[in-house]
């Protein structure tokens, strides 16, 4: 009798272990999503609509991205001529009415970019999130008619990130983020990013229309729309240089 019990236990545990070996981990989900969403090299034309307690502003830009470098050129009438250049952790800005290029760092980056709810710092975080957070798969739910993985991430001890906790809904089939909730250390919900439109481009699923809502202020949100996107375009040498800013 003793033997039988042990064998049963062994078979049972093997079964359990083999199931988990087949199940996907939170980290893998995130990585797959990043494969879709993380831009290694791209040309993007986008629109940003900033809604500040009822006041609406629209900005249009063209961005060239390569690894941790990016060049952004504004094309809407009000901001035409303004350009940003990001290289690693540095950010430079060019304005038509200024005679030189302005370099920004430190606190400045924590401000909202152009008044939006996306801070420069958030945009600068090209470091993969997996290194800064501890991810945990907490369930599989349906969101907006799509089956999703629900992943909870809490920041690593000592990590210098803006949001203490992030909860993400990632489409099970397409591995694209559909919703993300951003929390403060106190547990208070600060922001919610919702993807309302996605598209498959060149075999990749990409969020086309994202709304970032500020939960602390009524009627305050930023909508980010991809007008066109080209993965792995030809980017000429010297694009990401200070000269190209002027």
């Amino acid at each position, binding site marked *: 009798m003793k033997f039988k019990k042990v064998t049963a236990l062994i078979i049972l545990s093997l079964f359990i272990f083999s199931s988990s070996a087949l199940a996907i981990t939170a980290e893998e989900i995130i990585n797959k999503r990043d494969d879709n969403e993380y831009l290694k090299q791209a040309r993007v034309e986008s629109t940003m609509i900033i809604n500040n307690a009822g006041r609406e502003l629209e900005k249009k830009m063209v961005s060239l991205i390569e690894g941790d470098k990016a060049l952004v050129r504004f094309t809407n009438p009000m901001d035409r001529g303004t350009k940003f250049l990001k290289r690693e952790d540095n950010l430079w800005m060019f304005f038509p009415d200024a005679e030189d290029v302005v370099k920004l760092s430190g606190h400045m980056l924590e401000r909202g970019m152009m008044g939006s709810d996306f801070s420069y710092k958030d945009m600068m975080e090209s470091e993969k999130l997996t290194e800064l957070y501890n991810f945990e798969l907490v369930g599989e739910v349906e969101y907006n008619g799509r089956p999703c993985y629900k992943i909870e991430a809490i920041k690593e001890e000592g990590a210098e990130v*803006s949001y203490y906790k992030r909860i993400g809904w990632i489409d099970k089939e397409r591995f694209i983020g559909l919703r993300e909730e951003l929390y403060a*250390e106190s547990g208070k919900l600060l922001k919610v990013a919702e993807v309302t439109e996605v598209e498959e481009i060149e075999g990749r699923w990409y969020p086309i229309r994202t709304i970032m809502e500020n939960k602390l202020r009524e009627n305050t949100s930023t909508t980010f729309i991809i007008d066109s996107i080209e993965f792995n375009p030809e980017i000429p040498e010297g694009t990401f240089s200070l000269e190209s800013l002027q």
Partner: protein
Amino acid sequence: MFLTKLAIKNLARHKKRTAITALVISFGIFIFLLSDSLMIGLRDISLDNNIELETAHLQIMEEDYWDEKEEAPLDYLLNENNEVINQIDNKYSNIAQHTARLNFSATINNGQEEYPIQVIGIQPKKEIDIFELEEYILKGEMLSSGQKAMIGKSLANMMGFEVGDYVTLLFKTEEGTFNTIDAELQGVLDTPNPMINEMYVYIPLPLAQDSLNLENKVSKYLFRLKNRDQSVEMAANLNEDFRQAGLSIKAYNWEQLSKEVLAMVRQGNIENLVMLAIIILLATVGVINTVILAALERLEEIGMMKALGLKAREIIYIFVIESAGIGVIGSTIGIIFGAIGVYLLKNIGISISAMTGGTTSFGMPIAGKIYGGWHPEAFLFIFIFGIIISTLASILPARWGAKKDPVKAIYHR
């Protein structure tokens, strides 16, 4: 010494004349001292707002923190349980109370608007001993402990907060991670200090430390001394102690902490001097005037003295000594009454509403009192000045009188 005796006898013999001249001096001195005291009282009121509400008498912080104190950074902080502070407490007996604060920048949020402010984590029980905040509570009560906050009237109005509402504060911890505090509004302050009314949010120190993940850390220590005037000296002493111990912290006296207010007050001081100069001028005119008239009156006497054989020089001497004597009498009486007056001003003060009729020029209610200031140097100065003026004023008239022909003098009428 015969001449001196004669001079003194003259004073005694013509009491009325002596009295009249001395009176001008006394009154002039009395008014001078009262005015000086009132002006000091006025100056103190201007400074009080700052000291009693914002800066305290002395602050200690890291030197690097001082350079950036406007930004309320989370760097260069001190430990809350601080050996150095304890030692200071033991060593110096003129410290009345001290407290610690943790300052940081945040935005205050009412669900619609957000507004940049500075949060100050305080130790309420100790703060009461150092600052007058409690007296300016308009609604609600003084901060206690827990998830509570206290803000100024202007801020409360602008954001639409009432006592009992919850205010949301949004800020970043030392690691740059967003955090929030939802605190119950316990009290609303209405102070004469615009910064407090518009920009500061007071919360209990432990709440601040917890929320920032900065347990046991504070930005600075604030002190109340037994006597405000010791601030400058005390700061210097402390800095010397720190230097010797090789510490990077520094003590700052209230003058350094209130540069702007101080500048305006210093300007006022100069103007006060002009006013005082006018008072002195008027009194001097009075004295000179009296002395001249006295000399005119006594031409006969001078003639008589000359006829009796006294030389011009000796006559002048008598007059000068007399005047000096009057100066001493006048100055002494003036000082005594001045001291009484200043004492009353300092301890009882003048009620403001009595004069202004209870409201300001704009119809706002005004109350309170003005207290005079005690300024020993002024007493010393005016005492000596009174005697000197009195003495000097007599020289020319005396010379003029002494030169007159005795015969003419006696029969000058």
